[in-house]
């Protein structure tokens, strides 16, 4: 149906976003503005958000084309810290490679890589205090690895095996690690955003010194939870850091479906009166510097910061996804901001603190470390048909104490086990 269009009013038309490149298209990134490294100004962390709006539209970069760290945002980190950062990122990548392959070999049901986005989680975790609280999405395994969480524990969870401390209750990679300041990951997008604000408000209300940080993809910024979180955070000046990982794609939907044709994601901060920084997410030093700045802002009661990490999802969304069906393969290879690991490596080489031989040796060493961990984890079992968990753990944790109806159902389940004649383990 449609209304009649009077002669003096033009017919409307509906705009539906369309990405620049589809499979088979040659990719030209001329439209991506990449300002020179070091050109963005660095306000004081306590400055009024309205005094540096341009930072929500620009791109804070530290590493330049000669691999030097330049400008006011360059963090003065020792070579040891830089090498640790590089190592953490390389370990994340090695871990991702191995676990992706394990899924392909049928050892588990699902996996998600963070390839190309390692800096976003690793450098941020390094710029925060170890006891600051993180509310991640499913793509920040780098936080756990940076905080020295056990690779074997991660793999146990991925395999839902006997060693999985989440008792096989969650989809692979939906970790939870309270002692590591890592909140239980939800499969429902953006729910962690207001939760992070709540944690931060509680910390402030109690006169604590710890802050919170949260992460979501650019696609998830469309969810209502994202906007509720920003409203609460600005109202109560919550000590929280919002990270929007703009990796350009949300499964098959490009960032235009989250509003990127009209403005930046950092600019969401402007409307809420929150500090907004748009940064080169493939520049580990820019991620470190922005996080350090935002952490100081939060710690001094100057309020929240929203950081847009401009990056690229170099691989599929998950093991269930085939990105060649909707985007040009050239996009990843031509990404104008390069690869975060390579860029930090080249910086360390440029300052005379690293070389390609050591890098290659480290890659081998990390691959071995991951392989060893995998062997250890697989000794606890792989998902297979999923019968590793003691059967009655199914009912643990619905409530603190089990009400009658769950006790009845648990008894029923155990009777079914007897009847089935299957050798399922009991607790």
């Amino acid at each position, binding site marked *: 149906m449609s209304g009649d269009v009077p002669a003096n009013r033009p017919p409307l038309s509906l705009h539906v976003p369309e990405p620049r490149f589809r499979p088979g298209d040659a990719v030209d990134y001329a439209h991506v503005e990449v300002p020179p490294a070091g050109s963005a100004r660095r306000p004081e962390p306590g400055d009024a958000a309205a005094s540096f709006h341009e930072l929500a539209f620009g791109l804070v970069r530290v590493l330049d084309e000669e691999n030097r760290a330049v400008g006011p945002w360059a963090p003065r980190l020792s070579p040891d810290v830089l090498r640790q950062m590089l190592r953490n990122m390389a370990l994340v990548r090695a871990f991702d490679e191995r676990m992706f392959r394990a899924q392909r070999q049928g050892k588990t049901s699902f996996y998600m890589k963070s390839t190309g986005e390692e800096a976003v989680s690793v450098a941020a975790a390094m710029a925060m205090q170890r006891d600051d609280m993180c509310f991640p999405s499913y793509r920040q395994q780098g936080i756990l690895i940076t905080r020295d969480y056990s690779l074997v524990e991660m793999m146990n969870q991925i395999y839902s095996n006997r060693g999985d401390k989440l008792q096989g209750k*969650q989809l692979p990679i939906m970790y939870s690690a309270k002692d590591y300041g890592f909140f239980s990951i939800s499969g429902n997008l953006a729910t962690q955003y207001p939760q992070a604000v709540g944690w931060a408000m509680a910390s402030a209300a109690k006169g604590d010194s710890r802050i919170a940080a949260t992460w979501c993809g650019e696609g998830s910024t469309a969810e209502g939870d994202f906007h509720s979180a920003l409203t609460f955070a600005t109202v109560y000046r919550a000590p929280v850091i919002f990270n929007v990982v703009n990796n350009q794609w949300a499964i098959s939907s490009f960032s235009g479906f989250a509003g990127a044709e009209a403005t930046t994601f950092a600019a969401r901060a402007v409307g809420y009166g929150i500090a907004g920084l748009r940064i080169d997410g493939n520049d580990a030093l820019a991620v470190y510097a922005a996080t350090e700045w935002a952490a100081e802002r939060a710690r001094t009661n100057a309020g929240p910061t929203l950081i847009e990490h401009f990056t690229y999802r170099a691989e599929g969304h998950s093991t269930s996804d085939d990105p060649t069906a909707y985007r040009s393969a050239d996009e990843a290879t031509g990404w104008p901001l390069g690869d975060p690991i390579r860029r930090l490596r080249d910086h360390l080489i440029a300052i005379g603190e690293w070389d390609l031989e050591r890098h290659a040796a480290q890659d081998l060493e990390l691959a071995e470390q991951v392989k060893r961990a995998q062997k250890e984890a697989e000794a606890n079992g792989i998902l297979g048909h999923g019968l590793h968990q003691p059967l009655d753990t199914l009912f643990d944790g619905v409530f603190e104490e089990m009400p009658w109806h769950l006790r009845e159902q648990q008894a029923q389940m155990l009777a079914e086990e007897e009847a089935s004649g299957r050798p399922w383990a009991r607790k």
Partner: protein
Amino acid sequence: MTDEMIETAAPAGGETSRMNMIQAINSALDVMMGRDDDVLVMGEDVGYFGGVFRATAGLQQKYGKTRVFDTPITEIGIIGVAIGMGAYGLRPVPEIQFADYIYPALDQLVSEAARLRYRSAGEFTAPITVRSPYGGGIFGGQTHSQSPEGIFTHVSGIKTVIPSTPYDAKGLLIAAIEDNDPVLFLEPKRIYNGPFDGNWDRPAKNWSAHPGGAVPAGYYRIELGKAATVREGGDLTILAYGTMVHVVQAVVEEAGVDAEILDLRTLVPLDIEAIEVSVKKTGRCMIVHEATRTGGFGAELSALVTERCFHHLEAPVERVTGFDTPYPHSLEWAYFPGPVRIGQALKKIMKD
């Protein structure tokens, strides 16, 4: 919509071919978009890519971006926008990528879509059909496995439809799209590619040998509110829908019980007449669903049967359901109401 178009004894919809449930749903959308310019498809990843389960594949290429489009990731936005488009006069078919992600949309569904006709005394309606894959059996963990139908059957003003074969999926989806009230169309994703008998350790089947896998190419409808008798019998009546129809059939065959199996197909409005006639004939009633037990749709069915058939019942109504826990990952098959649970209930109700 004219009366002659309603399903008749003569084969409607033209020549049939073998389809799986995804293809049948795709075909229903295609047929309806071809017949009615006001039908449009929207949702996360449904456009160029054609949906994460491929149910909308090829539709954007055929009907263009203003009729088949990707949306921002906001379920409440998707449903609210669909209602607004419906208010203009269009007939949107929004997809919620997984039923587990429908909760952010609850307010628009429950407070808005369901009540718009009532509160405006018919001035505005929400003729939307919300498609969403639901149910477990695919190792999807707690956020790709849930069966939330009971939440919606509790809401006045929304129809809830659940097919169990490709043939039904197409005919019911067409009827849902033509319906002037909001319809929640839940697709049992475990049987997208083939019927499932509940035995996860046996090889998967596809739809090629199942009668419900023969699907006409063209237009036909299956009226909402009509159950299907998938097996006639005299010993007891089993009420099921979605995946569980197939699990129940397999259990009944293996147990050698002469059960009458009703595939409800529409939960609201329910085919109460078919249920009453069958239960009064058999004197026993068992209800099977995958969703959690407490306050589930099985509770409503049990109450109805008890209220209406009490004097015909020879045994208490038996409910077989998922357990009242979140959907687990590794213990999926301990959770799932499979052959053992159904078989035990069957023994119990036949003994009583």
